């Protein structure tokens, strides 16, 4: 399915491709289930959104309830990167490198106004990347400045729904996303 088809949150599952082998689709369901319920994010936060992300991980909101369980300090062990904060031009190659070091399948959440579009630094700023999608492909955008932990939880759950739509014949290939 095309990336551009993700427009409406409510009808996401309707876009799931019909047809296919019973054995393969069941296998895909199992893989998607295990994959989406055990997302390991990379420990990566560049500014205040990082604090909200920590709050979402802390006991009050606790996103391990949704399977976003352990933060990994190495990109090689992570499935997902939450870009939590402003990305400046000097940080951009570092972020790209971190993303490249992650193993497939890998997912990206752009958290907060800065990662979505440059946010408050869009105007009159000499050093900010206007949206992290200039560097790496983004799966879920979470607006807010910074978004509340509930918003992050919602974003993660949307990502899980998105992962559940993958099939063995149409896996997600990051190389194809340009």
């Amino acid at each position, binding site marked *: 399915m095309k990336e551009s088809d993700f427009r409406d949150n409510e009808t996401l599952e309707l876009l799931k491709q019909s047809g296919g082998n019973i054995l393969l689709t069941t296998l895909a369901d199992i893989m998607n289930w295990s994959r989406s319920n055990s997302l390991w994010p990379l420990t990566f936060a560049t500014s205040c959104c990082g604090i909200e992300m920590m709050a979402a991980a802390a006991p009050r909101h606790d996103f391990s309830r949704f399977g976003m369980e352990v933060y990994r300090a190495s990109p090689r062990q992570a499935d997902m990167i939450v870009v939590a904060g402003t990305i400046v*031009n000097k940080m951009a190659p570092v972020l790209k490198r971190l993303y490249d070091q992650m193993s497939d399948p890998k997912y990206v959440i752009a958290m907060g106004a800065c990662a979505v579009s440059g946010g408050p630094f869009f105007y009159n700023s000499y050093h900010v990347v206007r949206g992290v999608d200039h560097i790496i492909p983004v799966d879920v955008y979470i607006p807010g400045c910074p978004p509340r932990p509930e918003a992050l939880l919602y974003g993660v759950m949307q990502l899980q729904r998105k992962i559940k739509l993958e099939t063995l014949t149409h896996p997600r290939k990051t190389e194809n996303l340009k």
Partner: protein
Amino acid sequence: MDNATLKERILGIVPDAKFQENKQFLTFIIPPDKMHDLAFKLQQEADLAFDFLFCLTGVDRIEFLEVVYHLESTTLKHQLELKVQTPDRENGAVDTVSDVWKTAEFHEREAYDLLGIKFNNHPDLRRIFLEEGWKGYPLRKDYVDEVNIVEL
């Protein structure tokens, strides 16, 4: 030491220091050539004992470039603000205070990096945040960057 005696004491060391009205801090504008001697005395003399430079800032006031020093004595609990101004935008230089307060070394590199204020006798004056080879000083009011800056 209270602010009134501190004021007398500063004017005793540098008679042509200009007092500036300020709600929070006792503020003086110091002539650039007197700054280093004053800094040394402020730190050394027992009744002043300014052992902590808690902020060093560069400011672009358009007519001149300014360096602001915020000082505190952690033992005697008094604070002081000093300003040094240089009208020369291209080669304006201020004496470093990094030999008096070590923390000034990085602060002065920052002021140099973003505002292009040069510091005489600084041990390692080069850019700290921006890449080597960056053209211009981005926090100056007259900085122009047509590629990156989107004007509002």
